């Protein structure tokens, strides 16, 4: 329990730092912008109470917003992401049979599940984020291509980070 709190706090700080000081400056062809910080919400333990999950998502979003100067934008997207996460996990994972407060990581869940999980959640988050940011339907084509290309970039970074920490835990 305490270990999980420490790990997640560290992860929160590290991901926010990476996002704000590194990834904020990366944009490929004005189209692809990675938002890796949502990995924090993706990797919260299965047993996280919903109230805590939404609160954490909200706080994470507001933190990112504070750096991006867009109060509410990332918070809204992250809260939606939390909802999608809850739905996705309730559909695909049976909660019984886990011990040690497992997390939905690449090493725990296997590549196929994690990839689908990351892709679906990222797409939802990015779709909502970009459309809320643009806040108009004109140029929807451009917005959608931004959504898709950014999602690819983000998922790629998620998989890379998942593989980086792969060896630490034995796969179930």
């Amino acid at each position, binding site marked *: 329990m305490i270990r999980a709190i420490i790990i997640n706090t560290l992860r929160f700080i590290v991901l926010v730092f990476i996002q704000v000081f590194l990834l904020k400056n990366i944009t490929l062809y004005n189209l692809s912008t990675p938002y890796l910080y949502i990995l924090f919400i993706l990797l919260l333990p299965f047993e996280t109470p919903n109230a805590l999950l939404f609160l954490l998502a909200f706080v994470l979003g507001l933190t990112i917003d504070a750096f991006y100067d867009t109060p509410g934008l990332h918070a*809204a997207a992250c809260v939606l992401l939390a909802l999608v996460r809850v739905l996705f996990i309730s559909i695909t994972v049976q909660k019984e049979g886990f011990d040690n407060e497992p997390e939905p990581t690449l090493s725990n869940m296997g590549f196929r599940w994690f990839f689908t999980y990351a892709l679906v959640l990222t797409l939802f988050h990015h779709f909502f984020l970009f459309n809320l940011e643009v806040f108009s339907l004109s140029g929807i084509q451009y917005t959608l291509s931004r959504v898709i290309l950014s999602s690819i970039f983000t998922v790629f970074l998620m998989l890379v980070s998942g593989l980086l920490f792969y060896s630490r835990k034995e796969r179930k």
Partner: protein
Amino acid sequence: MRNLLIFITKYNAFFLFLIFEISSLVIYIKYNSFQKASFINSSNQVTGYLYTQKTDLDGYLSLKEVNDSLARENAALRNQLKSSFYIDTVAKHKLNDTVYKVEYEYTVARVINNSTNRSFNYLTINKGSKDGIGVGMGVICSSGIVGKVVNVTEHLANVQSMLNKDTRFSVMLAKNKEIGSIRWGDDLDPHKGLLMDVNNNAQPQYGEMVVTSGYSLFPAGIPVGKISNLHPKGGSISLNMEITFAVDYSKLQYVDVVDYKYAKEQEGLEAQQKKDD
């Protein structure tokens, strides 16, 4: 019970989602001026769109009255149009050739009747004897010769078109000044004419311009057409050529009537010469 719990959990999640989502959206719209403005704007767009639709519908219902009033207005405007009046005064422009003391006077006229598909084509212009038009005057337009006046009334004149079996004009090759006479081609093609009786020594070239010679009603150098076939028929003591007219006679709108001031004098002189012979 378990199902119920799952249901409550789901409901719980959705409820939490609503709370947080709404609060973040409120923050978002409140603190971002662009979204604030555009949120209000889009609500205005909705009302504006509805109003536009209503106006469109109203417009449809009153189409008939609008149509009627437009038709009335059209008729009123048409009555004021210049073309519905006969123009009484005529602006004439003169060409003073001071070297040769020859004076040509031009009168602008509008073609009000025209034909190109018969063997003897005539056109009618809206200027007559009142405007100084007389029988025998030449008629040209901006791109070439048109014909000659054969009948005149007070306000109108009848012009024998170039596309008439009886029409003959004196023309010359633009380069070497060899003269000949032009008439309409044999197959009633409104674009083709025949250049007859050119001296055998002339060396005409394909595409060469044919212009008026200045020996008849027109000033010299008015374009007639271009040579399009050098040997339309053989067995003649002089050269014959097929030419393509410079003027599209089916599209005539405005023409200039040429008043050659010394036409009478020339005619009289030449008649005198014949009599003497």
